[in-house]
């Protein structure tokens, strides 16, 4: 305290130290005590100056000196000893010196001011303090509030403005003192910033009263309702959220009025003091802005999660209505309104109301400071979700224009001519929606909360373009997800492809498209639940769809491998394709009809159950189909699409064009575009979609295809005697693809059939008229038999003469034909040898057809069947004058016909199923012994059959049924018109041969390659080593091996197979 150097410096320094320490919670009372303390502590130092009295307040330096002296003189004797703590001495200040709250400051203000001593510095300080108290008391916030009502009252009071218009002179004087303390009260040593004080008081008031109230608003309205909002059971929650938001807004508005009122008081004080000088006005404005900014920051930072959630809920609802996206919580207006989002009309009152409500709300939020950065983010999130919802909602499963109403609006769009909009109706309507609703709403809302109403537009044209491209991206993502359905719905889905074509423009998107599509394929198509036919049908649709999407076929080539790989595992794929190619016009027509009916039914179902569409799109192929129709789709047994394509002239033209001129670029092609960037190295631009070609090449090697084709053609040629137009056409097509040589066999087969028809007539003519002789070049021939009995009782017998070398799968099956047929064969043979000397016929008895007319006691049965079946039933023909009904067992037939017993059993089963034969359990026989009799009467045939112990043996008619005693005459007829091919027997023979062959392979494998092998290993080895392809699935192989194990030829050791030694 022996300060000799600048005491003033020391004092201000000390003050700074104090300020720096107590700044955060310093307030008026503290300042008071601080002043005293400062004065007190500086007295000793001041004494050395002494001197000046009675000076005026004109010199600041002088006045401060005087102030010091006054302090010393006026209060010196009352001061406590140095070091005494001031709060002990000033009991009124003790309670408030540490904790400053508005209430306490109010208490302070309520105290009578200290006696004024205007002529001394101490008195100046006191006057200042008193003035400070007056001012702070005037603008002090209410001490406690428990409900927003209390704000309301006060706010109402403050809003009357009476006091603002005529502020009490006391306040004004005090304010003037506080503001101009340095000039009016030169003795004041310590002044404070009244605006900062107000801000602090506002802060603490807000924290103490408003925040709890806000929390109360949120809790009251929403309470435990949060979960229900999130789970989408929205019910009345919009109203609840709205109440939350509105009460919060009201609370905040009231509080803000209060705060602003205080500020306004201060500002009016300022303006009165400054007499409206421009600088002061500017300062006041600045002060005002800063204050509001601070308050808004305060509000927005303290907004609770619950409140923001409510704001979001309200925003979602209102914006949804404005944008035409129906929310689940909002019960739609009647049944007429579908749940699909659609751009709302401009005159929709609900929309107008919602828009007004939303903008009003946003404005209110902005006014109370809730429209800060968090609101921006929130709004962006909501709009983002809206766009996604609109795109998925409006366009999922809708491939043409979703709503024609919106078209009229589309005319006046700014972006109507942008290349983005292309020609797709979906994209057009989406762009229209983005522009007229989405961007418009964004613009309006952002304009409301823009801090600077005269600044740049919140949503520029560039932003609009961005919005549109984002929306297009969403649409693209949606379409990519839907691509499989699009392919299924081809060609109705063509507009959706336009969407995709317009949006999938980058290599990354193309990549995404193929990846996603491949995944969908795996999930929905390439599984055991889909028949090969379905897969192929879908494949055709995919080929056409992707071709329409991308003429370069690159997309297709990216998708195809998995499909092709899977099809290779389907052994019947080639057969399905071939028989599809060969489908007759009749079948095509039928399939078309069925399809049409199905489509109509489908559409009806879709109209009925619009809402289910999204769900069903998730299901797999079968599911979605059956769920949409509510019925099983009709069974289409052939890939008739191929036949349609084949008959389609445009396709044929394409094919020829593709085949003739695929060598070089067409220099006259004005539509040429470069190859896509993701094309492979050996990429070659295809000319057309070429469905058939793609399909055939997808099925593996040419050999396999031709082999299968020959087999199918052979079967059909043997079966159908009609014309072979279809076969010839397919043959021509394949010849163009594979070359003449590869299909020579088929040519020969067709020629054989045509020739034998001619020969047949010639032979019959020769038999009736005499003989004509023709000499033809010799060839090894085999003949297929068809026989027919004429009305006169004579058998009619026709044969087809086949060139053995060229027909696939001609296995001989030995059995004895009925004598009548053998005689016919001999006659025919003779006739043939007369016509073509030096050639011999070898009969293939099991191929061909027979028409059998059975004269039973009470009925005549005419059946088209195979020669084997005909032979078996002929054996039941009673001998002339034979005694009793004919009864035969399989063994007896086996001896009689020398036929394979499998064939006999199959034939017997056929006749039992026709109700011609009856199966009886042998009385004395072993368990598996049955005998058969002819069911002479229909009653016997229809008698209830008794289930047997062994279901595989088929029904057994009631034991003891007496078959009629009359002779049954089984006439064996063979008719050209019968349609059943005689494939069964030959296939079984082939199968037996195959089993034998595979068994040898397995033996060789286990002898040489490895003595023990697992099933998978064996299957793999067989696939590799069998020259014409291993035909069995793993299951079949396992079954076969199981038989061998049962037959004690193999054994299983540790899950692996080995030969039994």
């Amino acid at each position, binding site marked *: 305290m022996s300060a000799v150097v600048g005491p003033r410096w020391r004092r201000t320094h000390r003050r700074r130290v104090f300020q720096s320490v107590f700044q955060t919670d310093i307030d008026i009372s503290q300042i008071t005590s601080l002043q005293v303390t400062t004065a007190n502590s500086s007295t000793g130092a001041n004494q050395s100056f002494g001197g000046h009295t009675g000076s005026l307040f004109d010199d600041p330096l002088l006045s401060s000196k005087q102030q010091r002296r006054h302090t010393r003189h006026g209060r010196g004797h009352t001061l406590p000893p140095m070091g005494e703590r001031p709060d002990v001495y000033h009991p009124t200040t003790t309670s408030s010196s540490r904790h400053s709250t508005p209430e306490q400051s109010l208490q302070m203000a309520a105290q009578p001011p200290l006696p004024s001593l205007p002529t001394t510095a101490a008195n100046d300080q006191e006057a200042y303090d008193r003035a400070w108290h007056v001012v702070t008391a005037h603008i002090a916030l209410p001490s406690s509030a428990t409900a927003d009502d209390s704000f309301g009252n006060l706010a109402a009071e403050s809003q009357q403005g009476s006091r603002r218009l005529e502020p009490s002179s006391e306040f004004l004087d005090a304010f003037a003192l506080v503001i101009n303390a340095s000039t009016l009260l030169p003795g004041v040593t310590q002044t404070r910033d009244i605006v900062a004080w107000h801000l602090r008081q506002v802060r603490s008031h807000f924290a103490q009263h408003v925040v709890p109230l806000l929390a109360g608003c949120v809790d009251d309205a929403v309470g435990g309702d949060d979960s229900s909002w999130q789970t989408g059971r929205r019910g009345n929650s919009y109203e609840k959220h709205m109440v939350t938001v509105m009460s919060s807004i009201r609370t905040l508005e009231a509080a803000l009025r209060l705060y602003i009122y205080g500020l306004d008081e201060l500002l009016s004080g300022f303006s009165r003091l400054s007499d409206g000088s421009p600088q002061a006005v500017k300062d006041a404005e600045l002060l005002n802005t800063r204050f509001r900014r601070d308050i808004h920051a305060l509000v927005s930072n303290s907004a609770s999660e619950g409140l923001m959630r409510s704001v979001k809920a309200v925003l979602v609802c209102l914006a949804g209505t404005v944008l035409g996206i129906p929310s689940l919580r909002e019960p739609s207006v009647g049944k007429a309104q579908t749940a699909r989002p659609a751009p709302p009309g401009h005159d929709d009152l609900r929309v107008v109301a919602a828009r007004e409500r939303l903008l009003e709300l946003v404005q209110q939020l902005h006014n109370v400071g809730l429209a800060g950065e968090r609101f921006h983010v929130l709004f962006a999130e909501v709009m983002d979700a809206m766009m996604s919802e609109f795109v998925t909602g409006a366009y999922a499963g809708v491939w043409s224009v979703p709503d024609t109403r919106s078209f009229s609006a589309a005319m006046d769009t700014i972006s109507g001519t942008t290349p983005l909009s292309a020609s797709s109706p979906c994209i057009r309507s989406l762009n229209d929606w983005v522009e007229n609703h989405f961007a418009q709403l964004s613009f309006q809302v952002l304009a409301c909360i823009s801090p600077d109403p005269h600044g740049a537009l919140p949503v520029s044209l560039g932003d609009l373009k961005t919005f549109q491209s984002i929306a297009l991206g969403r649409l693209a993502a949606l379409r990519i997800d839907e691509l499989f359905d699009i392919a299924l719905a081809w060609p109705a889905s063509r507009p959706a492809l336009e969407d995709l074509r317009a949006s999938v423009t980058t290599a990354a998107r193309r990549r995404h498209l193929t990846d996603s599509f491949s995944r969908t394929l795996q999930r929905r198509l390439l599984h055991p639940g889909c028949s090969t036919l379905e897969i192929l049908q879908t494949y055709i649709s995919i080929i056409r769809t992707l071709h329409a999407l991308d003429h370069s076929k690159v997309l297709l080539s990216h998708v195809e491998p998995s499909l092709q790989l899977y099809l290779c595992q389907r052994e019947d794929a080639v057969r399905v394709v071939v028989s599809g190619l060969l489908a007759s016009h009749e079948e095509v027509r039928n399939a078309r009809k069925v399809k049409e009916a199905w489509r109509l039914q489908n559409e009806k179902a879709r109209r009925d159950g619009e809402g289910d569409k999204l769900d069903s799109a998730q299901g797999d192929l079968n599911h979605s189909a059956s769920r949409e129709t509510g019925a099983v789709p009709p069974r289409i047994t052939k890939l008739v699409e191929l036949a349609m394509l084949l008959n389609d002239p445009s396709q044929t033209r394409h094919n020829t064009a593709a085949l003739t001129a695929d060598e070089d670029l067409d220099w006259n092609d004005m539509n040429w575009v470069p190859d896509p960037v993701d094309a492979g190295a050996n990429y070659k631009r295809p000319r057309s979609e070429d469905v058939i070609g793609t399909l055939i090449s997808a099925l593996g090697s040419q050999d396999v295809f031709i082999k299968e084709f020959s087999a199918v053609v052979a079967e059909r040629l043997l079966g159908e005697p009609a014309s072979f137009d279809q076969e010839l056409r397919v043959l021509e097509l394949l010849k163009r693809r594979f070359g003449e040589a590869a299909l020579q066999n088929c040519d020969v087969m067709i020629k054989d059939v045509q020739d034998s028809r001619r020969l047949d007539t010639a032979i019959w003519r020769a038999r009736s008229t005499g003989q004509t002789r023709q000499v033809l070049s010799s060839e090894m021939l085999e003949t297929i038999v068809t026989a027919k009995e004429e009305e006169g009782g004579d058998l009619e017998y026709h044969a087809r003469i086949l060139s053995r070398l060229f027909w696939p799968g001609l296995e001989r099956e030995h059995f004895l034909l009925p004598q009548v047929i053998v005689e016919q064969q001999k006659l025919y043979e003779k006739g043939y040898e007369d016509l073509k000397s030096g050639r011999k016929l070898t009969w293939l008895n099991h191929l061909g057809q027979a028409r059998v007319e059975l004269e039973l006691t009470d009925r005549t049965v005419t059946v088209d069947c195979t020669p084997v079946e005909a032979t078996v039933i002929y054996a039941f023909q009673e001998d002339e004058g034979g005694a009793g009904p004919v009864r035969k067992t399989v063994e007896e037939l086996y001896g009689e016909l020398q036929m394979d017993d499998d064939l006999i059993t199959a034939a017997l089963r056929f006749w039992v199923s026709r109700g011609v034969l009856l199966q009886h359990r042998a009385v004395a026989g072993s368990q598996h012994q049955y005998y058969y009799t002819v069911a002479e009467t229909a009653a016997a045939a229809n008698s209830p059959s008794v289930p047997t112990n062994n279901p595989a043996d088929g029904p057994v008619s009631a034991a003891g049924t007496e078959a009629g005693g009359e002779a049954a005459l089984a006439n064996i007829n063979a008719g050209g018109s019968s349609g059943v091919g005689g494939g069964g027997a030959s296939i079984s023979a082939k199968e037996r041969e195959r089993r034998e*062959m595979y068994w*040898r*392979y397995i*033996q*060789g*494998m286990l*002898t*040489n*390659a*490895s*003595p023990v*092998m697992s099933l998978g*290993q064996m299957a*793999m*080895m067989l696939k*590799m*080593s*069998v*020259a014409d392809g291993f035909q069995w699935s793993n299951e079949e192989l396992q079954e076969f091996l199981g038989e061998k194990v049962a037959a004690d030829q193999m054994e299983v050791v540790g899950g692996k197979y080995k030969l039994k030694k």
Partner: protein
Amino acid sequence: MSHMEDSQNAAPGSVQANKLGGAKKSVEPAQNAAKRLQTELMQLMTSPAPGVSAFPSADGNLLSWRATIEGPADTPYSGLTFKLSFEFPSNYPYSPPTVLFRTPIYHPNVDFSGRICLDILKDKWTAAYNTQTVLLSLQSLLGEPNNTSPLNGEAAELWDKDPALFKTKVLARHKDIEDD
């Protein structure tokens, strides 16, 4: 007729060399070889010869086969089974396969590492031969060794001089191998 040095079977690196040669060429020859081998296998399976059998090895390589020969009756090898390995070059059938006895065998024309001296596996090879004919030739070689150019001189001597000792040596040498 055999000289150990230039016998194709005698060169241990020949298999490797063949494979490398095949790899350098286009894929076509190897595919042809595979096709041909499939056909041969089919023939072996449809019309098997008694006492011999063959099959591609379990590693799934069609160019590598395992074969079995049963010792012919009335020879010292009667009742014994011999395993062999066939390695086909990628230009098969234009080059002969490399054939080795995997079962240890005591034979004038087979050395102790199983290499065989047989003219048709060397310079007399033509594309008309196939696996089955090779196997049948080897089977007959068991009964009628070519003692004029033996790989195993002792065996060639004993074959004529002491059939009983030869038989003992055959039995002593023979050991059934368990396949991997």
